[in-house]
């Protein structure tokens, strides 16, 4: 699993860890019930503070992506694919909101947007 951390990014380090792990789950690089590295280990390997990793793990757990078994460590939770999809849908919705906002403010029609979307999507596919 790759976890790439950028110090210059305005995104918090714990957020970057979360996203790397989510990505690994989504691409099935991390399988269901697979153990994640221990908090301390990961902190050492990434040369970051224990609290930072803990925050990332805690939030991943709250969001249902991983579960922590006391004394054992953290592992990838089941049913995470739907969760992940849902999560990503939310992300997409955010962008769509922005598209709508911009198109309304500049009088671009829904059809024009959909055409553009289809054009770009088809070409990239």
């Amino acid at each position, binding site marked *: 699993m790759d976890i790439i951390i950028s110090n210059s990014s305005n995104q918090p380090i714990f957020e970057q860890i979360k996203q790397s792990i989510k990505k690994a789950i989504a691409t099935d690089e991390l399988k269901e019930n697979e153990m994640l590295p221990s908090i301390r280990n990961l902190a050492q390997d990434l040369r970051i503070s*224990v609290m930072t990793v803990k925050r990332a793990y805690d939030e991943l757990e709250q969001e249902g992506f991983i579960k922590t078994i006391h004394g054992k460590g953290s592992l990838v939770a089941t049913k995470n694919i739907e969760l992940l999809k849902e999560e990503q849908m939310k992300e997409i919705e955010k962008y769509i909101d922005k598209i709508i906002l911009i198109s309304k403010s500049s009088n671009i029609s829904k059809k024009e947007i959909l055409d553009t979307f289809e054009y770009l999507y088809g070409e990239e596919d």
Partner: protein
Amino acid sequence: MENILEVKNLCKKYNGFELQNINITLPKGMIMGFIGENGAGKTTTIKAILDIIKNYTGEIKIFGLDNKKYDKKIKEDIGVVLDDMFFPEILTPNDINTIMKDIYKNWDSKLYFKYLTDFSLPANKAIKTLSKGMRKKLEIATAISHHPKLLILDEPTAGLDPIARNEVIDIFQEFIQNEECSIFISSHITTDLEHIADYITFINNGKIILEKTREELLEDYGIVKCSKEDFEKIDKKDFIKYKKSKYEYEILVENRKAFNKKYDINTIDKITLEELMVLMIKGEK
């Protein structure tokens, strides 16, 4: 015992300098960075924790035990690197091993010599022949070779080049792999602490002016850069300190996300410890 180190209302008066009501809490398994300018009181605080100085007031508990009453018991489990204080320099790393074997119950000669090899330190040369960086490494090797539970380090990376600093930080993180162990580390080289410290305690002029988790400080705090007009629109309650320069205002805010929601100012960055120090000390309110 959840806290490895607890300092309550520590006060100490010197001629022309005063430590005022220092409070520090370091939980088990964590690294605390103790930052401040030279002369802010870092070394004095550390000397009080170790009961090296006299006539201070307040309560200091290490491993839940009073630092004066349980002096010997506590010190068996502490490793220290003190700024400028060490073995007489005519002794050799070998001599240190011979001496420490009889001082610490848990002294681990094997581990000590392993560190000497790892750091490429000569065992038979007098300390005075070592470079400043090598000497620091020797001090660090000496501090951790009795499997301590608490490391108290005063400027442990001063005088080290970037490569050596990296090696040393690796050792500190290795040390913390054991959840029972903690590190209290003072430094004015803030970049060393920026990533590895879990807590940041900031001392200025003998007073603690900030004690936060790294996460709160470096992920939530922010530095806003804006024009004078924008600055005048901002509510005084919404920032901690500000500094004005010729072309811009730099404003320290506690939560950059919240600030971003409230104001329409776009340049909000994460803060570095260095910027934080400068703004806290030089900034106005």
